[in-house]
């Protein structure tokens, strides 16, 4: 009987280990995959490692993660230890009070702590970035250090320090030569916990950082919408780094034991120093290896706030090569997310919002006028169809980045064109396709779809019409079991997981180029003819470089790389023509060339009242959808 239970235990243990390590092994294996697939291993290649090394945002985030973790660990270990010692001698009331407050980060949901810190930084107008990130990490690490040091102090002989001072030690010597060595195990485990917490943290970092400073978690979070095996590559790198550190920590003391005495008595110090050297050497090598040339913008930084997965693989590198400047890019999921961040004082040099948002930013006086003389050569290369659109009739503020329409991507093997022609957007209410549709998590375009299907203008501010659209959407989420996604739709539709989805034309172009069974349909009820454009906000710090960038993005080389990689329609006429003509990347893909001149198609306009209603109603739709599960 004893044996049986043991076998049960062993099996459970093995299964647990498998469960814990399967994702990690999976990650490592697929980082060497030749193709983009996350499910089929097609062959060995290092291309994702190349992509990772080229993507300096990724390397930067790893660097930030490690530096923050090390600094936070050092500071919080020091402060935590000192404070714990101090508290052990303080009055009970003070001790209890501090312990209570210390419990906040541990007893509160992390998101609450995170929001508290964000509000703190914003209320006191502290610009969020590396420093606030570090402060936040120190703040939540110290309580853990104290938690691990306190019991050790409590178990100390209270006369120890007195004895040391009686024998002539100064208070500082008593502390460093007697007390600290005694509580060393507690300090070490506290430091380890602090490092892990900081290294792993996402939620608090997510809310307390800014200015493009990202740690690994934030980077993965913003990149995870689309399949990107480079994430696996960088994760594998992390696994390797961690393994090295752990091996050092475990093996170095053993080696030191074998070669007794000669070396220092404290293996920890050596370990930490060793690890620091390895890490810094690694980054020193990758970061500063190749940048000592004379370029016009050498040493300057351009901060861009752009949509996720919205730039070609090479363009940023090309721009950096040309100007010598460094590009830091932050990503957003929606115009609203971008607006909130910018409105709260985050400073960027370039934003890439959509049409109606540009109109709003202009109205709220948040943009600077462009210096046309600096970008004229770029503007000349653009398609007249995307210039002079109603939100910015003279292109005083904005230069188009991408443009396109919104439509339905469908699986030709499952959906007939007749159904689409008959229903238009109404196909998202057709129960024939229940459980087989994707909606797009965008308040604007979801309402556009409903309003257009109902025959209203998508720019309506009529509350009844909006309410009708809300009901339309609620009906859809309640009866159709849709999945509300953002960029995940791209890979999922490319793999034909569902029959129908609401997409942007550029994504559709990419999907169709990956899977020939997919089609793109623009309903006859009309749709959204949108454009995203580059603008320079008022609080930009590097206006010259921003102009340089805008101009650069209009050039053939940049636009070509951008459009062919992302799949969205380029405003550069030559690029658009070339990609859609015979032999081009998007030859025969109707989604690539936007429908122009169709009278029912509209461009979004900004309206404060309807924005609020739509925003509120859409978050309600999502809540309803979530509850409908």
């Amino acid at each position, binding site marked *: 009987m004893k044996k049986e239970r043991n076998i049960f*235990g062993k099996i459970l243990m093995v299964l*647990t280990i498998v469960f*814990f390590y*399967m*994702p*990690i092994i*999976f*990650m490592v294996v697929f980082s060497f995959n030749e193709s983009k697939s*996350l*499910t*089929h291993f097609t062959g060995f290649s290092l291309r994702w490692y190349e992509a990772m090394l080229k993507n300096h945002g990724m390397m930067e985030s790893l660097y930030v*993660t490690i530096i923050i973790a090390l600094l936070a660990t050092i500071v919080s270990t020091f*402060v935590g230890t000192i*404070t714990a*010692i*101090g508290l*052990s*001698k*303080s009055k009970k009331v*003070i001790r209890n009070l*501090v312990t209570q*407050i210390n419990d*906040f980060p541990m*007893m*509160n*949901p992390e*998101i*609450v702590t995170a*929001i*508290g*810190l964000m*509000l*703190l930084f914003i209320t006191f107008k502290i610009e969020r970035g590396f420093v606030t990130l570090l402060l936040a990490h*120190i*703040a939540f690490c110290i309580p853990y250090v104290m938690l691990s040091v306190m019991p050790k102090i409590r178990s100390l002989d209270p006369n120890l*320090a*007195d004895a040391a001072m009686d024998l002539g030690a100064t208070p500082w010597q008593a*502390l460093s030569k007697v007390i600290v060595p005694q509580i060393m195990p507690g300090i070490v485990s506290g430091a380890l916990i602090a490092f*892990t917490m900081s290294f792993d943290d*996402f939620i608090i970092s997510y809310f307390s950082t800014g200015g493009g400073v990202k740690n*690994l978690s934030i980077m*993965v*979070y913003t990149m995870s919408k689309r399949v990107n095996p480079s994430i696996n590559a960088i994760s594998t790198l992390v696994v390797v780094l*961690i393994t090295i550190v*752990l091996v050092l920590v475990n093996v170095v003391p053993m080696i030191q034991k074998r070669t007794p005495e000669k070396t220092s008595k404290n293996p920890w110090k050596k370990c930490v120093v060793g690890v620091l050297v390895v890490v810094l050497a690694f980054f020193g090598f990758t970061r500063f290896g190749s940048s000592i040339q004379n370029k016009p913008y050498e040493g300057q930084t351009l901060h861009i706030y752009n949509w996720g997965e919205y730039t070609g693989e090479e363009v940023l590198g090309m721009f950096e090569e040309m100007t010598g400047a460094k590009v830091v890019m932050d990503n957003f*999921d*929606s115009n609203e*997310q971008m607006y*909130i961040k910018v409105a709260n004082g985050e400073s960027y040099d370039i934003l890439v919002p959509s049409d109606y948002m540009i109109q709003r930013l202009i109205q709220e006086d948040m943009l600077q006028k462009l210096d046309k003389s600096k970008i004229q050569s770029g503007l000349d290369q653009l398609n007249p169809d995307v210039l002079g659109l109603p939100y910015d009739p003279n292109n005083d503020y904005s230069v188009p980045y991408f443009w396109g329409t919104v439509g339905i991507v469908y699986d030709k093997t499952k959906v007939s064109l007749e159904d689409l022609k008959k229903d238009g957007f109404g196909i998202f209410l057709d129960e024939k396709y229940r459980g087989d549709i994707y*909606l797009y998590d965008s308040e604007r375009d979801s309402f556009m779809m409903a309003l257009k299907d109902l025959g209203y203008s998508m720019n309506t501010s009529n509350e009844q019409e909006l309410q009708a659209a809300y009901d339309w959407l609620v009906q859809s989420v309640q009866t159709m079991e849709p*999945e509300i*996604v953002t960029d*995940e739709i791209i890979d999922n539709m490319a*793999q034909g997981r569902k029959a129908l989805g609401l997409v942007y034309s550029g994504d559709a172009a990419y999907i169709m180029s990956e899977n020939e069974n997919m089609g793109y349909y623009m309903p006859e009820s009309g749709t959204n003819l949108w454009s995203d454009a580059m603008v320079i906000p008022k609080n930009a710090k590097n206006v010259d470089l921003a102009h340089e960038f805008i101009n650069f993005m209009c050039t053939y080389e940049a636009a070509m790389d951008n459009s062919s990689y992302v799949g969205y329609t380029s405003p550069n006429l030559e690029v658009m023509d070339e990609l859609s003509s015979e032999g081009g990347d998007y030859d025969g893909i109707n989604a690539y060339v936007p429908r122009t001149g169709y009278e029912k198609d509209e461009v979004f306009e900004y309206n404060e009242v309807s924005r609020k209603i739509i*925003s509120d109603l859409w978050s*309600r739709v*999502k809540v309803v*959808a*979530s509850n409908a*599960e």
Partner: protein
Amino acid sequence: MRNFKQLAWPYIVWCAIMLLLPMLLIFAYSVMEQGNEIVHFQLTFDNYIRFFTDPDFLLILWRSLAIAIKTTIICLILGYPIAYFIANRSDKVRNILVLCITLPMWINMLVRTYAWIGLLSSDGIISYILGIFGFGDQELLYTETAVLIGMVYNFLPFMILQINTALCKMDKSLLEASADLGANKVQTFLRVVFPLSLSGVVSGITLVFLPAVSSFFIPKLLGGGQFFLIGNVIENQFITVGEWNFGSAISMIMAAVMMLLMMLVRKVDAKSGKED
């Protein structure tokens, strides 16, 4: 010796600014009228009223609690036997096993969760294995099951480690005493081992339940955009909608609910500890 006391003062100031003040700010925002400037303070409870009068938000809160409870229960059911198994190994084996459990926690949570996307997708390994056992063609990704797997995956180690610590701390002579008094293994477990490990169970529950309720990246990554939990609502309010006052109110409500639940759990623990 007395002058060591002063060592605590800098931190007390820091504590007030970095830990206490943020909480006060959330509270202040939550009882303020619309607007992200704290300068124009206008007391209102509308934000709270709005939450409590909207059945949809209440439902989301309930669903968040429900999924966190499910996660906690699964972690407990899986974690206890594992911890028990580990605690009963020799010192050497135990240290290795504990290291095995701790090791993945060193690797970024998001990264590990991201890996599950590939594993769970409909032509991924899990589906393939399920297919072998005749459960083919299950849609796993972007379902509640996926979110549950992600949560259990991320939080199970906490449960195991807490229970394991409690079990290891237990005086082995208590088990001998119980056997000596005529209790067989099962009786010893039910009457001695389990009640004495409750402190570990409770701190394990705290460490699993708390992050599970408020997590928003696990539902977002594995549950898809239509899988909204209370954490996502808060994130949404702050990041996309921009109604910080309402977001702050939800945060306060969540913090309050958690605190209540935690107090409840501790009370149950204290009580059951005293019972037979």
